[in-house]
């Protein structure tokens, strides 16, 4: 797969100003901007690392350049939601779609482990979300105790927010003492976590990066996948599915006018 990706990038490079992809660094991988003529020997595909935020950062500085980006299913859906809120620009972005392996899909418990257009890899089926039903089948007291215990472990690193490509507000309400008492660990139950969850409604594609970076092993994916399912059931809105559909809630556009978001770049 990596060799196929390398070929694909070499093929696309003449048409773009750079390709945003993973590169081997140290013992792992990290986002990197490969420029025309760069050595691709350190190109990598795994372990995974979310790329939409680097796209936002690079496009913000170079709005007129054309980039390509290597995307998995979740990356693509995140980029679509970001584009709806003017955080990235799809017309200046070429996507190189990578289908996740079965192993990867199982690790992420991913419903849709592939982007719309697959350039690299073989598409595998999504993982059924039965664990959500199992969770909901538990008695209410047990579920409450489960979350109370989980959130009591929180060390307020903000990692869940920081790693999330959909968390791009310049002013974050989680840092506002009015809503979440500042400077206390753990943050008050359940405000910190539920405010964050509500603020991702209609944007969250349930990629699971928040859980992956959580030092306290809080099982955030359950919460976010349940929310995503509710959005789909109640509003028939599928985050990241269609770039031409308006965002579920467009209050963020209003916030952008108030300079609360990272400003539009063009």
């Amino acid at each position, binding site marked *: 797969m990596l060799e196929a990706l390398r070929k694909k990038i070499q093929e696309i490079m003449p048409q773009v*100003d*750079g390709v*945003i992809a993973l*590169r081997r*660094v*140290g*013992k*792992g*991988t*990290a*986002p*990197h*901007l490969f*420029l025309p003529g760069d050595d691709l020997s350190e190109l990598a595909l795994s*372990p995974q*690392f979310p790329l939409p935020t*680097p796209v936002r*950062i*690079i496009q913000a*500085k*170079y709005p007129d*350049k054309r980039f390509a980006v290597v995307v998995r299913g979740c990356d693509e859906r995140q980029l679509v939601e970001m584009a709806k809120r003017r955080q990235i620009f799809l017309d200046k972005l070429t996507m190189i779609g990578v289908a996740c392996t079965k192993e990867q899909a199982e690790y992420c418990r991913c419903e849709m482990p592939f982007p719309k257009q697959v350039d690299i890899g073989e598409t595998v089926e999504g993982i059924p979300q039965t664990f959500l039903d199992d969770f909901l089948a538990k008695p209410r007291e047990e579920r409450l105790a489960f979350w109370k215990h989980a959130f*009591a*472990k929180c*060390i*307020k*690193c*903000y*990692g869940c927010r*920081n*790693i999330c490509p959909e968390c791009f507000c310049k002013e974050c309400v989680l*840092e506002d003492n009015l809503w979440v008492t*500042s*400077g206390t*660990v*753990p943050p008050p139950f359940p405000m910190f976590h539920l405010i964050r969850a509500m603020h991702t409604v209609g944007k969250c594609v349930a990629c699971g990066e928040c859980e*992956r*970076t*959580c*030092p*306290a*092993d809080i099982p955030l994916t359950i919460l976010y996948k349940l929310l995503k399912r509710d959005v789909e059931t109640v509003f028939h809105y599928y985050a990241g599915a269609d770039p031409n559909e308006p965002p579920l809630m467009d209050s963020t556009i209003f916030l952008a006018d108030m300079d609360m978001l990272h400003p539009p770049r063009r």
Partner: protein
Amino acid sequence: MEYRNVPTICTYCGTGCGLLLEVLDGQVVGTYPDYAHPVSEGHLCIKGWNAGAFVHHPDRLTKPLFRKGNDFVEVSWDEALERVAGELKRIRDQYGPDAIGLFGSAKATNEANYLMQKLARAVIGTNNIDHCARLCHAPSVAGLAMTFGSGAMTNSIPELENSRCILVTGSNTTEGHPIIGARIMRAKERGATLIVVDPRDIQLARFADFHLRQRPGTDVAWINGMIHVILREGLENKEFIATRTENFDALWEVVKEYPPERVEQITGIPADQLAAAARAYARAESAAIVYAMGITQHTTGTDNVVSLANLAMVTGQIGRPSTGVNPLRGQNNVQGACDVGALPNVYPGYQSVTDEKVRQKFLEAWGAAPPARAGFTVTEMVDLAGVGAIRALYIMGENPLLSDPNIHHAREALERIEFLVVQDIFLSETAQFAHVVLPAASFAETSGTFTATDRRVQLVRQAIPPIGESREDWQIICEIARRLGTPAGPYGKFDYAGTAEIMDEIAALTPIYGGISHRRLEELGFLQWPCRTPDDPGTPILHTEQFTRGLGRFQPVHYRDPAELTDKEYPFILTTGRVMFHWHTGTMTRRSPKLHKEVPEGYVEINPLDAERLQIGKSERIRLVSRRGAVETKAWITRRVAPGVVFMPFHFAEAAANVLTNAALDPVAKIPEYKVCAVRIEKITEVERPEKLVAARAGAS
């Protein structure tokens, strides 16, 4: 156009988490966790996530400065280096090398610290080199060396999550070392018994099977009480004691005087709970002790540490995976700064300066070495500066004017000194008193190695060039050394192509680092010392077959009261410590917007019962007074502290806890008693009425 991520090591605590500095066109624009890092595994705390936030701060020092009256003027590097070298030379010639003192830095790399002590010893000719380890884990270095022969964390961080019992004491781990704290919570979820001995109701205490709340300063008593229970009930590990230790007979003679009932009177810990916790620790398949400043920052700091060592040895809970005595070192490189000899009594690798053979070795290697007597410690150097015995101080990356106990005294001393050079990234409280300020590069702008608390040596990679005209620490030291004249030994030069070459020199002269090189670290990711040869894989667990000193030595000690007790005039015990969101004297974290926002100012924690008795309201400004000084700060009414105890974080210059703290020293390790002093609380204003508060809040928003 350039965008890349540079893997490096966090600059805050001693956990040694891996992080990626996100660089766009030569600017650090963000931080990501390193998912492949063996300790942090893609996790960071809030400080790690914000580790790059101060790098481009406008307050960064970018040019060398000379003091002119109450102001500073910018000068060229040549001028600054000439003046520093000239003054150091003059003072050495006039008053002798021991009139000069140098501070290494627990924030700087191993390579920079090695050069700093080499400058002191081989060029200036004094052992007056020390750093802030004195203020945190000097008792661990001394106490564990006495009992085990090696003053470092015995086991490795990742092992903790497999431990069957963890005894955490004097460490608010989830705030002080958050990623280690998370491992401890993980161990608990995997079924470990968690024992927390801490005066405060810290986050870990909520998960603990036993939370034993001792009166601050009574640690030897409860540790002896635990050993008492273990021996009385026959729970000791007889085989381990017989084959691996010595001086056991003396132990019972001491601990027999500490039945849990008496311990309860001294410490306030209920006798039955102490006994139950002792049994759980002794019987566990594997039990680890984790501790930090709450154990060491006492006049009995060394006693506390050796008592914990006694407890581990009597139960044989050491030398195996997931056991051991595990001091959590505070700073990113406090372990390394000690390892490479930024201490007044040892050369690199804990080779004693008073050992003539060792001195001869360095004399031959460098071509010069100071007389075989220990130099002065940081606290002593400041005292001696006050009386004129130390004429010049060269301080790299430390801020004693906020970190020393009784800082009024430290300030007077530094005002009096003839020549003060401070090398730092910001104009710290200490730098404001300097005659010459040298602008240094931050961790993002330098390369080298940091050694984490579990003896894990890791590469620090340069992400961007130094800001402005600032220079890397190691380069500045080399410039000064060359101007002073370097000795002629085979390792006497101060002329390196890069930091890899400095590490090669460290490896050649430091047996425990003998097999460490940048090339190997690049290949393996990390190496844990002792690592003696180029094919030595390193040592994750110490004392497995035998102790470093051969047999482990029991050092029974009796309980002594803290230096300062409460009385009618000063009825509260003040204890000090860290909060999650800030770092030490705040020079970096208070310039990181997201960290500053969490805790913008200092405060004091007061129990609701005390607050009610003294009629103190929420967030009311109050005055804390000790025998040494007074500070005004905000009251935070919380059950985290017990009645009679107040807690203050030490990060805030405007409400500096160390105006109040007691400079009484541990007789062995010379650490000041930051954790216990007596204070009283004075009201400044009347309790504000609720309607006034509402009005004030409406006005503010």
